């Protein structure tokens, strides 16, 4: 599919970078003139995915997180968050609302539910020991 515009950036899995990731994605998406709600949805979805990589993917180690945002035809936004962390052995279980492997850190187990609710399509691919790739798509409302 034709890519109208794209941004790709890599950052270390430091929690302070969660806000930076949201800010970069927001700035890039401004060119599409999204509604306040659409932008908030995508910011939240990115924050959830990046936090998953930091808290779960790189639980016992550090590593890099690669974020790609693409603008596709028909006002479709594509976002990919990729890490090389520990991976997810059972994706279905991980996506169950309220399931968390980090209750002691007060993780609510809602990350995937939020990503699902705030985007049109969520795909999670993971291999234990290799890492996780989360892709999300959201079609922005047509301009008046």
């Amino acid at each position, binding site marked *: 599919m034709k890519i109208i515009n794209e941004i790709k950036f890599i950052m270390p899995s430091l*929690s*302070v970078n*969660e*806000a930076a990731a*949201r800010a970069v994605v927001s700035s890039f998406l401004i060119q599409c003139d999204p509604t306040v*709600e659409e932008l*908030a*949805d995508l*910011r*939240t979805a990115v*924050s*959830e995915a990046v*936090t998953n990589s*930091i*808290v779960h993917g790189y639980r016992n180690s550090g590593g890099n997180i690669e974020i790609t945002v693409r603008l596709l035809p028909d006002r479709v936004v594509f976002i990919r968050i990729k890490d090389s962390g520990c991976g997810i052995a059972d994706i279905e279980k991980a996506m169950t609302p309220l399931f968390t492997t980090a209750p002691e*850190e*007060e*993780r*609510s187990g*809602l*990350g995937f*539910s*939020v990503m699902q*609710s705030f985007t049109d399509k969520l795909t999670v691919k993971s291999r234990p020991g290799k890492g996780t790739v989360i892709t999300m798509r959201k079609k922005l409302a047509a301009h008046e």
Partner: protein
Amino acid sequence: MNIDIRSGNGMTIARLSGELDHHSAATVREELDRCILTQQPKLMIIDFKDITFMDSSGIGLIMGRQKLVEGFGGKLEVHRPQPHIQRIMKLSGIERIVRIV
């Protein structure tokens, strides 16, 4: 993230401002817990009016504080969350546990 905490007459109000994510939640948790442990409020209000962003980390934060306050026989209320934050709260079902005003 800024936190303004005021206590008196068994009530504590914590006004938060800024963005609440996994990173900032750690500091907020520490400050609120210190206050809850010393004040043991009967009513703890967390004012979300000036929270401009929250992801599901905020849900974990609220649930954790609710348990702590309840442990001292108190109640926790969440006040004035913005519409987008209300959506996450609704999705989580937290309104069944904590009163949202």
